């Protein structure tokens, strides 16, 4: 199986939209703690290109989180320098610096006594944005992370599910439109299906915004899926390999990386191929409120036994069999939250997972802001695997 070049082709620099991120450069960064002979981070030098997602992975205690926290000065390096967009981060006060860097941590870490809206508005308020502007921003962000502003703005964190809290956490990190966003195990506290969905959403958001995102994870699969580049660290934050997921899977630098990436590298290639790489099939769609009889006629002409139902914003809300449709005279909507879909940037691995649970032998694919794109089915995936195998 040869490597596919999809990730390289889709790096933000070549994708549509302008890069709003900033380059981060670490130069000989070292962190020593008193009383410890070995440094936690030793002489780490690396460049994180503007507008890319760089994943820091490594065994626990390798210094990946320490390295991350030095970028927003939650931890001050013992020596070495860090620049963002060419500016030394020590030039301004730590508080001012941090207001320009989004920070998202595990579980969202929302303040429980503040509403969702106030949580998101925190940094804009610190920066002195005016009320109307902040309010508009909060609503835009809630919309961006797939939560209806009117329903969620005034709720408290404890009234939200883990996945929703994490979404708000991401929205809060994006609030002041910072060029750089740091994420520390952002999706570590949610169940696998929610995690997959959140990862897809992050990729969709990044497709729109092109921030520089530095993300710590211990999960190599997450790193392969999300990262434009992956930094694999050994102890004391020594760089084992820093490259694109393709390159790391195709040519691990040494035994350490090989072990870390694990067996089944060929299968992991499925994690590198995206839903966009395969041909989506068109299915009969219907709008909420349409006459059922017309929809069923249309479906029968197309030879479909199920219909994808879309809301007014072209988002899929349900996928119903014709016999279910017949129960109502007009097409009724459904709960979008409970419909399992895959993002177009999702890996074939995730898509297969979703298809297995859907009951339709396929999965609904959506694009930016959950817009419906089509359906991916088993045929498409197996065809794709055969093609790649022959190539």
């Amino acid at each position, binding site marked *: 199986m040869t490597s596919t070049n999809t990730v390289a082709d889709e790096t933000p620099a070549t994708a549509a939209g302008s890069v709003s991120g900033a380059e981060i450069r670490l130069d000989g960064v070292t962190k020593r703690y008193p009383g410890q002979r070995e440094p936690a981070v030793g002489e780490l030098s690396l460049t994180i290109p503007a507008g890319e997602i760089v994943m820091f992975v490594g065994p626990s205690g390798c210094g990946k989180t320490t390295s991350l926290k030095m970028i927003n000065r*939650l931890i001050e390096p013992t020596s070495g320098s860090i620049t963002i967009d060419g500016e030394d981060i020590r030039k301004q006060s730590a*508080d001012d*610096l941090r207001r320009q860097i989004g920070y998202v941590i595990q579980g969202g870490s929302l303040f429980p006594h*503040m509403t969702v809206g106030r949580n998101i508005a925190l940094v804009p308020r610190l920066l002195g944005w005016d009320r109307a502007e902040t309010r508009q921003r909060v609503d835009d962000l809630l919309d961006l992370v797939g939560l209806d502003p009117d329903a969620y703005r005034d709720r*408290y964190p404890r009234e939200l599910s883990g996945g929703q809290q994490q979404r708000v956490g991401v929205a809060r990190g994006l609030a002041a439109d910072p060029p750089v966003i740091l994420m520390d195990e952002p999706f570590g506290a949610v169940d696998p299906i929610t995690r997959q969905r959140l990862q897809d959403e992050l990729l969709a958001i990044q497709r729109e915004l092109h921030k520089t995102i530095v993300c710590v994870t211990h999960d190599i699969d997450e790193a392969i899926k999300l990262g434009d580049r992956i930094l694999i660290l050994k102890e004391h934050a020594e760089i084992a390999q820093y490259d694109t997921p393709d390159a790391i899977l195709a040519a691990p630098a040494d035994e350490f990386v090989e072990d870390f990436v694990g067996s089944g590298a060929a299968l992991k290639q499925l994690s590198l191929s995206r839903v966009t790489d395969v041909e989506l099939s068109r299915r009969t769609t219907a709008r909420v409120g349409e006459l059922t009889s017309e929809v069923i006629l249309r479906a029968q002409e197309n030879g479909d036994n199920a219909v994808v139902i879309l809301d007014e914003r072209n988002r899929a809300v349900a996928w119903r069999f014709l016999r279910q449709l017949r129960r109502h005279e007009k097409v009724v909507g459904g709960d979008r939250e409970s419909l399992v879909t895959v993002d177009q940037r999702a890996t074939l691995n995730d898509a297969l997972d979703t298809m297995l649970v859907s009951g339709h032998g396929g999965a609904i694919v959506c694009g930016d802001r959950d817009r419906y794109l089509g359906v991916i089915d088993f045929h498409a995936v197996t065809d794709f695997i055969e093609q790649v195998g022959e190539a």
Partner: protein
Amino acid sequence: MWDFVRDRRAEIFYDAWQHTYLVVLAVVAATVVAVAIAVIVTRIPRLAAPANALSAIGLTIPALALVGLLLPVLALGSTLAFVAVAFYAVMPVLRNAVVGLQGVDATLLESARGMGMGELATLARIRIPLAWPVILAGVRTSTQMSMGIAAIASYALGPGLGGFIFTGLAQNGGKNAMNYALVGTIGIVVMALILDGLLLALGRATISKGVR
């Protein structure tokens, strides 16, 4: 008894009001002091244990003894009564404030720091609001306790319903002895209940729905 109350209605209401006023003032002052000390104590972890020990020891000083100790510094009267009541009122609030502030999740504080909130903003917007339910519980305990202690303070010529109790004790065996003591005691209990109700309402109004 009923005649006793009716004859002294004005006096009783006035003393009940004075008693409550003294306690409210003392508790408010004590809360400010206690929270301030707790903020310092939680910044410097080494101070936590001594602060807890001191607040425990402070409560064991008999109220009358404290009045005696304060006499060389302050003249008998309202000020002395206020200081004595406030001294005791600090203890429960301090203890709860330390526990409450320490109980704020460290990851929340780091996340606040990571968002660029300074020390003061974190204190005002995160730490105190999150510790507030616990602090307020301390304020309620403190208020109940202070209502009782304020009775003893009137021994030092302070205002309040304590005067009735002491008069009753002094006239032991007299016609109205029991009436004096009862009116003083019941008056204090009723006012304490009213204050507690007000504090509960304050809690409803000031504790965020997100942490209630």
